[in-house]
C-alpha cells in the first residue's frame, strides 16, 4: 500500500447484513458505505431499529450467525477484510485494536469479577502482561478515567459502584490496550445528564490524547454534535444522509434529517409547537418498494414509491439518498 497521509483506518464497503426470523428475512443493513480516518470521530444516528447497533457489531465481528449473515460487502480494517477473518484472527483485533463500550454498564460488566481484574484481563490476553503488572496497570487506568481511590476501587465489584463509575470502568477497559478505534454504542443513554456530560468530556479527552478514532452510536443528536466530526443518519438499514457535523445541522437536505432535528425539544426563549414526523418507523419485515422513508415523507413524489434513490454526493463530502436532490 502506498503511504498517503489521509489513509482510511476503517472502510466499510457495500455492507449488507440480513437476519432470518420467523416472519421472513430482515435486511438490517443495506449497501452501507463509510470510512473513518485516524483521530476522526464519526457519529451514527438513527431511531430504534435503524440498524445502527448492527453496524457496530459487524465491525467487531460479533454478528451472530445464524440468524445473522453478512451477505455482501467488506469491512476493511487497515486493508484486511474483517468479514473474512477466522475467529482466532478476529480475537486478536477485538478488544485490542478495536474495542467497544456498551450502553448499559450494569449488564456489560461481569458481576463476579473485580473491576480491576476485568481491566487486567485484556492486558494479559493481548499484551502478554503477567497478572501483577496487569493489575497495577489497571489501577493506573482507573485513575486516568477519574475514579477516586483507584487502588481500593480496583478491588471492588461492579455492583458496589454507581452507574457513572461503572461506565468509567468500561471506558478504562476499552482503552486499556490503546485501541485505534473505539466503538461507543449509546455510551451515555443510561446515565443522568450531569453524569453524561462528565463521561462525554472524559471520552473526548482520552481519545484526543491517544489519537483514537471514535464511532459513536446514538439516538441523541445533541450528543453527536458535541463529540463527532462527521455524522451518518440511518433509517431502516439505509444511510439517508452523511455529512460533516456542522454541515449536517446547519444545512441538512434529507426530509428525515430535517424532521429529526426539528422534532427535538429545544430550550428557546419562546415556546413553540414541536414539528413531528408523521407515522412511525415501518416494520422491518415489511417490503417497501421505493424509498423507505416515503410513507412518512411530506415531499413524497410518484417516483419515491417506485424506485429506491441512490446515495449521491450533492455537495463535497455531503451525501444524500433522496429523489428531491437529483
Amino acid at each position, binding site marked *: 500500500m502506498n503511504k498517503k497521509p489521509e489513509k482510511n483506518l476503517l472502510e466499510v464497503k457495500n455492507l449488507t447484513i440480513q437476519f432470518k426470523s420467523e416472519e421472513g428475512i430482515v435486511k438490517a443493513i443495506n449497501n452501507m458505505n463509510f470510512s473513518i480516518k485516524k483521530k476522526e470521530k464519526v457519529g451514527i444516528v438513527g*431511531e430504534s431499529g435503524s440498524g445502527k447497533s448492527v453496524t457496530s457489531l459487524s465491525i467487531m465481528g460479533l454478528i451472530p450467525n445464524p440468524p445473522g449473515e453478512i451477505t455482501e460487502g467488506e469491512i476493511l480494517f487497515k486493508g484486511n477484510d474483517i468479514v473474512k477473518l477466522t475467529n482466532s484472527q478476529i480475537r486478536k483485533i477485538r478488544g485490542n485494536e478495536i474495542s467497544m463500550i456498551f450502553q448499559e454498564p450494569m449488564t456489560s460488566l461481569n458481576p463476579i469479577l473485580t473491576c480491576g481484574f476485568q481491566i487486567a484481563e485484556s492486558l494479559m490476553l493481548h499484551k502478554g502482561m503477567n497478572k501483577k503488572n496487569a493489575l497495577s496497570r489497571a489501577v493506573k487506568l482507573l485513575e486516568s478515567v477519574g475514579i477516586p481511590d483507584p487502588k481500593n476501587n480496583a478491588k471492588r465489584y461492579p455492583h458496589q459502584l*454507581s452507574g457513572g463509575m461503572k461506565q468509567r470502568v468500561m471506558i478504562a477497559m476499552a482503552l486499556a490496550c490503546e485501541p485505534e478505534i473505539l466503538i461507543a454504542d449509546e455510551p451515555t443513554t443510561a446515565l443522568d445528564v450531569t453524569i453524561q*456530560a462528565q463521561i462525554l468530556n472524559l471520552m473526548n479527552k482520552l481519545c484526543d490524547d491517544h489519537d483514537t478514532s471514535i464511532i459513536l452510536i446514538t439516538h441523541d443528536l*445533541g450528543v453527536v454534535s*458535541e463529540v463527532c466530526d462527521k455524522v451518518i443518519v440511518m433509517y431502516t438499514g439505509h444511510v439517508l444522509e452523511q455529512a460533516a457535523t456542522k454541515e449536517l445541522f446547519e444545512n441538512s437536505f434529507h426530509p428525515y434529517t430535517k424532521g429529526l432535528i426539528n422534532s*427535538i*425539544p429545544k*430550550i428557546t426563549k419562546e415556546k413553540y409547537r414541536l414539528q413531528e414526523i408523521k407515522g412511525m418507523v415501518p416494520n422491518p419485515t415489511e417490503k417497501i418498494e421505493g424509498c423507505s422513508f416515503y410513507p412518512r415523507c411530506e415531499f413524497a413524489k410518484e417516483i419515491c414509491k417506485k424506485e429506491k434513490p441512490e446515495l449521491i454526493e450533492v455537495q463535497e463530502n455531503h451525501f444524500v439518498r433522496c429523489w428531491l436532490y437529483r
Partner: protein
Amino acid sequence: MNRDVLVSVRNLDKNFKLKKTKANPFTSLKAVDDVTFNIYKRETLGLVGESGCGKSTLGRTILHLIKPTEGEIIFDDINLNLISKKEMKEARKKMQIIFQDPSASLNPRKRINEIIEEPMIIHKTQDKKGRDKKVNELLNVVGLDAYHKKRYPHELSGGQKQRVGIARALALNPKFIVCDEAVSALDVSVQAQVINLMKDLQKQFNLTYLFISHNLNVVYQISDRVAVMYLGKIVEIATYSQLYESAMHPYTKSLLASIPKVGDLKKESKMVLKGDVPNPANAPKGCKFHTRCPFAMDVCKVQSPELKEYSKDHFVACHLVK
C-alpha cells in the same frame, strides 16, 4: 393564567424504611423532604431531576398511591388525608397517571378496548353501549384507528401503546393527570407526536398536568412552570421564561449547561458538575447539593436553605440567593 389552585402540596414528607444489612447501614430513606407547592388549574407543572431524586415518589404520593409520611395534599379543595375509602375512590376518578414504559403498564392479555374501558367498569360510569361509544371516541381523540381496539398491546408500536395509555387515563374525564416520564421511552420523532398530542388534549379537556421527566428539554417545551428536584428537595420553581432568562440555583444552572445542544459544536467551558449524586439514604447535611456545588460556603454545610420566593412565581432554595 387562571390562578385557581387545583392541587396544593403542603410540607410533604415521604420516608421509606430500609432493611439494615452489612452492605446498607442505613435504616430510612427520605425520598421526599418537606415539599410545598401549588399546581394551578389548566397548567402544566414540570418536575425535573436526576434518577433517585424522588420525583416519581412525589408524583405517586400526590395521588395517594403511596401514603405520605407527613404533610398533606389538598386536591380540588379536599384534603386527601381526611377522607374515607369510598370518598377516595370518588376522588380517584378525577386524577389519573400515565406511566413511562407503555409495554409494562398495559395488561398483555387484554385487548385494547378492554384496557381502555376498564376504568369505566371499575367506577361503573357507563353501561356496555356507552363504554363502546366512549372507547371509539377516545381512540379517535388520541389518533388511533378504530381497528386497533381488538388488538393486543404487543401488536402495537411504542408510540401507539403510549397513546392507549393516554386514552385509558382520559376514560373517566379526569381533571388532573400525573405524567411520569410519559415520553421517555419513545424515539424522538414519535416523542414529538405524543408531546403535541398531550398539549392538544390539555386544551380540549381543560386538563392539569404534573409532567415528570429527567429530560429538561422536554419539560421545558411542555410546561408553564418547572420545579427542579434534588435528593428529595425542591431547589427551584420558576416559570419557563424565568428558567430561560434567570435560573438561580447552581444545580438548575448546571442541569441546563449539561444538556448536549443540537448543532452546538464542541463547546469546552461547560459547567460540568463533579462527582455523583450522593446516596439518598445517606444524604449530606445542610444543603443537600453542597457536596457538588461549585459555590458552596460554610453555611451550606450546616443549614438547609428554605425555598423562598425570589420574585413573583420564582422560588429558590439556596443560601447564595438573597
